[in-house]
């Protein structure tokens, strides 16, 4: 199967600590990967390397046939989009956040597209003018995720985005991620500690003490 991203002998060291050891991983196009492992094992570090937020110490990372070094980091991150656990929302209102992807691409705001995205995750048009401080944790996470997918990335990297959310919010986000993966062809890699999410995984990968184990 064709790989959208391939890691070869990837190592990461910071301040003399060896955090990731010889990671080898070929991620198939359209995969839906659940990444787990004990806290401090290096999962988030791995995801951040894949997102070009930090750079590996050694090894190769190939995205879409080209080494990561050959991409402009800004354009790369628009294709391999990373979403944080407990994201920070920008500005004052929800609108400030969902228009951000258009602003940084110097493109006119597509109002209908934003409304459709909001609706898909159970948020209405009236949310746009809502101050971000009034949002619940689940609403914040959904708004944050919309920023990642208004311009559809090839790979979506999700760092415990459902942690701390209630059942209803989790269900909305799961359904949405499934839709992005199945209907829109976005490869998704999601870090989680949640037993249900791990049980439902189609591809389960595990990072233990900086080493990767993948189970198909």
């Amino acid at each position, binding site marked *: 199967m064709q790989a959208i991203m391939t890691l070869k002998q990837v190592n990461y060291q910071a301040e003399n600590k060896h955090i990731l050891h010889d990671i080898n991983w070929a991620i198939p196009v359209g995969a839906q990967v659940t990444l787990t492992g004990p806290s401090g094992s290096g999962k988030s570090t791995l995801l951040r390397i894949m997102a070009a937020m930090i750079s590996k110490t050694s090894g190769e990372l190939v995205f879409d046939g080209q080494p990561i070094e050959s991409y402009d980091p800004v354009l790369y991150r628009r294709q391999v*989009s990373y979403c944080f656990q407990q994201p920070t929302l920008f500005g004052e209102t929800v609108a400030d956040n969902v228009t951000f992807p258009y602003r*940084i691409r110097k493109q006119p705001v597509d109002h209908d597209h934003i409304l459709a995205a909001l609706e898909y995750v159970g948020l209405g048009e009236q949310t746009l003018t809502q101050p971000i401080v009034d949002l619940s944790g689940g609403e914040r996470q959904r708004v944050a995720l919309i920023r990642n997918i208004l311009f559809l990335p090839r790979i979506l990297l999700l760092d415990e985005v459902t942690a701390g959310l209630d059942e209803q919010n989790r269900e909305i986000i799961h359904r949405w991620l499934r839709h992005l993966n199945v209907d829109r062809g976005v490869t998704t890699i999601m870090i989680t500690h949640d037993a249900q999410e791990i049980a439902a995984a189609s591809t389960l990968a595990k990072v233990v003490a900086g080493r990767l184990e993948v189970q198909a």
Partner: protein
Amino acid sequence: MNLAVNNTSLFFAAMLVLVALGISLWQKLGLDKDIIVGVVRAIVQLFTVGYLLKYIFRVDNVWLTLAMMGFIIFNAAWNAKKRGAGIANAFPIALLAIFISTGVTLGVLILSGAIRLIPSQIIPISGMIASNSMVAIGLAFRSLNSQFHDQRQGVLERLALGSDLLDASIAIVREAIRTGMAPTIDSAKTVGLVSLPGMMSGLIFAGVDPVHAIKYQIMVTFMLLSATSLGSIIACYLAYRSFYNAQKQLK
């Protein structure tokens, strides 16, 4: 002229230093050494500058005047740099920002005929412009440092969403420019109500009609606005990149 200060009167005025020293010792502030060093430095530096300026004004040589301006700008940049610990190239950035802000502001003043092209006008005005630009840049540098520290998560998220370095930093850059300009704008609002600033005070001391003296102060207000805004914007736009590495990652 009614200028009365002389060595004897300065000697007695030095009593005022004893007030500060006394407070420091009494309240155990531990500032006594700093006060003495500060006072001695002030006396030595000012006497040196006094004789130096006297010489420069008398010689009235264009190269000597330019050298003195260069010395002022260099020192201003060196001081601004101290506030920019952690910013790569803080010194060359401050030097360029102060050089341009001083040059442009001074150029407009000369072309408009507000000041004349003679050392006794050019040098003091250069010093005023450069020192205000220096303070503005120092404040802007400090603001950049603290904001990039406090708003780290927000910057990371903007980067992760594929924003370029300017878009990821623009809110921080604007706030830093604002911080650099704020003291000048605040003092423009209260000038004459709270303080009678140095320029007009000096002229009034020297016996100039206050109505004429204030025109110089108005000119100073204009020039400081220009100097601090130019200095801050140049410094911030050149400095924000140093918070990122070559892979466009936040350091």
